[in-house]
């Protein structure tokens, strides 16, 4: 419920993604604060996993740097709990094996205790999502689900029905990464079909990296998720320096204009 309220009619919500602990937690703190000041409506926080099947090179490398720095699920939850009061709603983004080893119920309790508003686990399909959705739902944490360009329409409708907070519309085939631009025509058709199936907000992600791409979904989608390009913007820098690069990147993207 909390997540749905970040979407406002006639306005494109901005949901940046960054990897927690890349390259260290100080940098993540600085970037989170910057994103909050620069109009992020919610923030996706990646929890690093060594074998991220849905991620391209930028996010996979960010995860590897965070892991090399000893970042664990526990440490990310501690960071969430420390900073959430000063931030927009936080959505944890990670892979199923980390959650599974933590224990679904324990994870739901810990995520709720830390104050997370949502959890995205991209390698759990519709057929497998029920236990996770129920565990997190018991703590009023939303579980947004992904719809891909390859998803058949009837399945997309079922996914939208189960999705919590918003529907994550994957803009193109493949994995995350600021490589090829989404095909705007296809995306519009995909979104039109989803509108017919659901009243839930639709946020577009995967490959969104430039102002032109953002402008192309304005008036079409309800929100835009920007990950790899933001990571590219701060990679190589630390602390306040990284945060300054992020603020320049976010200003140039101009989602909230």
């Amino acid at each position, binding site marked *: 419920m909390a997540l749905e309220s970040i979407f406002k009619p006639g306005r494109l919500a901005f949901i940046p993604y960054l990897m927690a602990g890349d390259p260290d937690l100080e940098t993540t703190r600085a970037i989170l604060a910057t994103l909050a000041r620069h109009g992020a409506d919610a923030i996706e926080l990646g929890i690093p996993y060594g074998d991220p099947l849905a*991620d391209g090179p930028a996010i996979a490398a960010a995860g590897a740097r965070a892991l090399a720095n000893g970042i664990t699920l526990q440490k990310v939850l501690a960071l969430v709990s420390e900073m959430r009061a000063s931030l927009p709603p936080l959505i944890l983004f990670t892979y199923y094996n980390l959650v599974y*080893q933590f224990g679904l119920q324990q994870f739901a309790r810990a995520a709720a205790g830390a104050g997370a508003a949502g959890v995205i686990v991209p390698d759990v*399909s519709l057929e497998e999502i029920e236990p996770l959705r129920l565990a997190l739902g018991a703590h009023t944490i939303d579980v947004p689900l992904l719809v891909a360009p*390859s*998803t058949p329409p009837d399945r997309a409708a079922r996914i939208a029905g189960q999705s919590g907070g918003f529907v994550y519309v994957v803009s193109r085939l493949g994995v995350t990464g600021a490589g090829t631009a989404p095909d705007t025509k296809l995306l519009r058709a995909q979104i039109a079909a989803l509108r017919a199936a659901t009243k839930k907000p639709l946020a577009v992600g995967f490959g969104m990296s430039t102002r032109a791409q953002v402008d192309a979904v304005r008036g079409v989608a309800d929100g835009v998720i920007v990950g790899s390009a933001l990571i590219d913007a701060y990679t190589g820098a630390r602390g306040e320096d990284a945060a300054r690069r992020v603020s320049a990147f976010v200003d140039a993207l101009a989602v909230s204009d």
Partner: protein
Amino acid sequence: MQPDALGYFGEFGGRFVPEVLVAALSELEREIESAFADPAFWREYESVLAEFVGRPSPVYEAQRYAAAESEATFVVKREDLNHTGAHKINNTVGQALLARRMGKKRLIAETGAGQHGVATATVGAKFGIPVDIYMGAVDVERQALNVYIMQLLGATVHPVSGGTKTLKDATSEAFREWAARVHDTFYVIGSVVGAHPYPYMVREFQKIIGVEARQQCLERYGRLPSDVVACVGGGSNAAGIFAGFLNDPHVRLWGVESAGEGIQTARTAASLNAGTVGVLHGSRSYVLQTAEGQVKETHSISAGLDYPGVGPEHAFLKESGRATYVSVTDDEALHAFYEFAKTEGIIPALESAHALAYARTLAAKRGREDLILVNLSGRGDKDIAQIRGLARPVP
């Protein structure tokens, strides 16, 4: 056995992949259903295996290898005699035929040692389908000869530099590549791993090993084996030979994992013996992982067993008690490798040497009436440079 509608063998299996791949897995599932029910499909599969691969592979009595310690009859199933030198080709022939049926324009595959890559490149050449192989950068260095063979066969080899730069990362990369080209690309997985329907499909293509071996034992010895032994990496050669005997409750099934330097050390690849239940590469099974769920780096003297996961059907056979999973160290496997070459005139693959090592200790405990069947999954040509490089004198 058949997995259930969601792809589970008991509580193992399933489909843990990004949504972008789900439609392709469903498409494959439908295609399998129609192909497997089509006698013409199996006729073509069998004719390719007969004429191109050289099936049926014989069973061979390896009594000199077993003799010192055993009264039991000791036979090996000669998958090493297959074209390209291992069981892997049974599976790539089947998947290439499916890819052609589905009109796919490109094959992709992961490979560790290069055996599955070579087997995929081979069928790509035979059927005229372009092939892209994903291989960890470390393996590209270690297995330079197989890289060259794949190139000779017309395939493109892509080194993968993420993570540990080995099979696990090559597999992840192949999944990502599939996600980007899911419409025209067929992902040829090399073992009974991955998301449903892969573990089931690959098992069905390797089942011919067990079906043939069962018939050969009956014809030659008038009885079924007392024990069937196979090495387990991802588990495809074991699943294939076990499949012939699952309904014969008196036949004991043994899967042999690579203990590496020991299952209590960090340098092991014995997922069923030293791992815990987790999710890797699309299915729930045993995984070598940290308490937090990060997949561990593995070690085995044999590249084909050096993988942190294992097929879900094996996890189920372990839990149900139908099969028993043991492990053999690098040194024990190496010893069997040398012994088998000297006593039988056959140089086994290092993977298969794990099965031979365990089977010999088993043979010492069995009597005159017993018949031990070992899957000799491949030949050792590919391992000779490595073993020669160990700089130990031949014992």
